[in-house]
């Protein structure tokens, strides 16, 4: 006897509808799963059997075939446990086929019959094509974010079977948790002095410009980077859903409201592998750090210590805002639209900040700097040196401007960018720069000089203009860019690796 149960599987961060077909017939007792299952799918047999027996249901002592259709999509994880169990119950005539019409099922089974949540519920709920979707009780909130039909949560198999048979009412949806006040983000007011770094953070947040901070240990690079989220606007509805999908697919804990509304802040350690950063993996296509940082920040501390291959893998997502991961079994495109913040020491000894104070040999410095490829460094619109703060300022300095005030300016600047048809100025195409960022004559002269003395390249020119436009936006100024805007942009793009010896002439 045959049962056909709708469910869904995860491919990258996207859900795909899957039909679980269960066939129970006479013959040698056995259990086969077909349709590109991975190991944890195949293990469904043992979990489902134990769960049925623990829930006082019968395990049909017949030949059982489970087919996961479409058979071309590779299926991973224990997502189908619940669908297999229900299919078995229907196929072995323990449940009426009519009782499960209009239902789809997602969930992993415990041996005692408990129904457990699975990664990627957000996208799975989106993909399930049935009017009613049954999910683990703890996942109701997650599934409701994009789910189109009715969502019903159940805690264990007995509860579910009773409800399907009509013996018991469906369990109540879990109460909305009392709104936990969000933890405050680290505030920019904690930063004393360091006007250059503050400016860099503000401009980076407002214009979506990637930021590289170079400075000796103890200069506060990490402290500055962790304050950037407090300057960024909250995610829009669409961004929040996408970020939530990614977090859900990666199995990263979601906030209490179920929706990722604050810009994510991801700070992978420099030992991170290529796959950890870009996503992928064998079998499961898990989103990597670049995707988890989507619509938020990717902070790479000790940038020079990351493997060069890992850093170079960042170039594609920096350019295209997505990352394509291809494996023999599948090829997946993950979102990867993040603001990159890099931090590194100026040289191996860490002291090569002020001229004449570094203890490294020229060779050691050159080797350290070669770890960052030119194309990658080029993608940082803002590059600043963060010197150690002045001790006097640390002890007696006024607290700096607080994040809320800066965030207002950032929001206003982003509003101006939106009027130009982009989310932030970093996204402006080179062709439209003349329209959006015209230059006063004086400002043009400054750029002309920078080009002539080799400080700027043609590509750098466009980047400087975008940053200068952001600077003007932060002042709330219209009209052509002034020399002050351009000068600020030039200051914010110092040639950090050129610390060696004074040039001649």
């Amino acid at each position, binding site marked *: 006897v045959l049962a056909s149960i709708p469910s869904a599987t995860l491919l990258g961060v996207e859900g795909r509808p899957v039909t679980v077909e269960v066939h129970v017939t006479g013959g040698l007792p056995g259990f086969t799963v077909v349709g590109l299952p991975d190991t944890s799918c195949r293990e469904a047999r043992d979990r489902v059997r134990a769960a049925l027996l623990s829930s006082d249901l019968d395990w049909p002592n017949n030949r059982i075939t489970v087919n996961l259709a479409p058979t071309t999509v590779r299926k991973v994880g224990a997502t189908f446990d619940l669908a297999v169990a229900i299919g078995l119950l229907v196929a072995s005539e323990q449940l009426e086929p009519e009782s499960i019409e209009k239902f789809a099922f997602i969930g992993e089974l415990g041996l005692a019959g408990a129904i457990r949540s699975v990664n990627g519920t957000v996208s799975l709920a989106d993909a399930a094509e049935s009017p009613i979707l049954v999910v683990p009780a703890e996942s109701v909130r997650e599934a409701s974010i994009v789910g189109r039909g009715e969502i019903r949560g159940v805690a264990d198999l007995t509860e579910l079977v009773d409800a399907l048979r009509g013996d018991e009412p469906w369990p109540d949806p879990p109460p909305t948790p009392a709104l936990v006040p969000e933890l405050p983000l680290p505030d920019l007011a904690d930063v004393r*002095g*360091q*006007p*250059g*770094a503050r*400016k860099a953070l503000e401009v980076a947040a407002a214009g979506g410009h990637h930021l590289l901070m*170079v400075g000796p240990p103890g200069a506060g690079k990490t402290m500055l980077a962790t304050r950037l989220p407090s300057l960024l606007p909250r995610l829009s509805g669409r961004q929040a859903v996408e970020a939530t999908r990614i977090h859900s697919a990666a199995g990263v804990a979601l906030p209490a409201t179920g929706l990722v509304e604050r810009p994510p802040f991801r700070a992978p350690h420099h030992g991170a592998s290529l796959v950890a950063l870009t996503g992928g993996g064998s079998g499961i296509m898990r989103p990597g750090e670049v995707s988890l940082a989507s619509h938020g920040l990717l902070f790479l501390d000790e940038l020079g210590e990351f493997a060069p291959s890992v850093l170079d893998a960042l170039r594609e997502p920096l350019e295209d805002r997505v990352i394509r991961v291809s494996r023999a079994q599948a090829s997946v495109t993950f979102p990867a639209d993040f603001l990159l913040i890099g931090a590194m020491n*100026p040289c191996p000894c860490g002291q090569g*900040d*002020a*001229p*004449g*104070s*570094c203890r490294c040999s*020229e060779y050691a410095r050159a080797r350290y700097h070669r770890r960052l490829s030119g194309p990658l460094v080029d993608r940082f619109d803002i590059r*600043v*040196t963060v*010197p150690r*703060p*002045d001790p006097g*300022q640390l002890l007696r300095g006024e607290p700096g401007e607080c994040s809320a005030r800066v965030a207002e300016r950032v929001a206003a600047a982003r509003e101006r960018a939106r009027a130009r048809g982009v989310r932030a100025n970093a996204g402006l195409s080179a062709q439209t720069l003349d329209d959006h960022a015209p230059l006063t004559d004086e400002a043009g002269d*400054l750029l002309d*000089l920078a080009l002539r003395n080799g400080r700027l390249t043609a590509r750098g020119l466009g980047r400087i203009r975008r940053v200068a436009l952001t*600077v003007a936006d932060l*002042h709330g100024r219209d009209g052509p860019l*002034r*020399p*002050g*805007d351009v*000068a*600020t942009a*030039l*200051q914010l793009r*110092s*040639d*950090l*690796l*050129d*610390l*060696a*010896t*004074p*040039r*001649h002439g």
Partner: protein
Amino acid sequence: MAEADDRTPEQLDVAAHLAALAGLPGMGPARLGALLSRWPAPEAWQQVRSGALVRAPEVLAGIRGHQSELCQDWQRAARATDVSDVWRQHVAAGVTVVTIGEAGFPSRLVDDPEPPAVLFHQGEAALLDAPTVAIVGTRRCTRYGHDVAREMGATLADAGVAVVSGLALGIDAAAHQGALDAAGTPPLAVIGTGLDVVYPRQNRGLWEQVVASGAVFTEAPLGTPPEGWRFPARNRIIAGLADVVVVVESHAAGGSLYTVEEAVIRDRPVLAVPGPIRSPASAGTNRLLADGAMALCAIDDVFVALGLVDHPGSSPGSGSATVGDPTDPVQRAVLAAAGWEPVSLDQLATATGLGFDDLSLAIERLVASGHLDRRGAWWERVSGR
């Protein structure tokens, strides 16, 4: 290149064998001296080549290190080397090889406590007839040290003094560049590698200019790579060739302090350029001053040390007489805040109280007018000549 050689065949034979000996692996002045204390060069070569050296305890006593291994290494290298090939290479490259005792050997080195047995040079060796001043200092110099070295190089060259330095980065390069910029006496360089091994590579252009107009000396034959121990050894030749040694900037344990030690052994006057006590690049020079080195308070002081002038000059360098101060009050304020030490943007912002835009603009203008120079994210005032 090499002018017609008027040396006797015997002299040429000695020079060729010395060139070959100096090219053996790990061969430094002390080891070469030990070999030559027993045998003349051609015989020393035969001893090394035949492996008989290992049975000469009185020579081995002067050779530090793993003697038996060294003897084997040398024997192997010597068997693979044809002395006349070595000689031909040097002649073809225009390298002059002079040995101690010959007429062409620098007279300042003849009485040296540790003279090189053989010297290789390219360029105009007659420049050594002029008074000489060694300008040495750290590779990791500040703008201040760079400017002082360069200005001194130029001033000395103008005055007919040959500047001697080591063609390293930083102070050395600045001194050479200063001397080349002036149309006076071209500079001399003493290097630690072979004449065909440009090190550091960044200095290739400068190196070629020094060879073209001045002269480059070394005690290492062609093909000798840069090895750490050769540079302190090279410093003794710099001290030996100079009438006066000036240290512009040195870190607390900088390599230039070797040169100072060697200069003291050779009774050469040592001058040190004072620097800010907070500048790590001046820690070594300030310590020298505390230990009794002469202070170079103005560029002209070097002429007093040379005995060319008998009273200190009054011009305090040209640090104060720069390109002409800017007229814009904001730029003047920024320049005043910059002082003469490297400053960061944050320091300038704090000191001037200017907004970021105004400050950035003033800096850009000052760079354009040549008052400020950028190194990474640091700013340094430029002193013109």
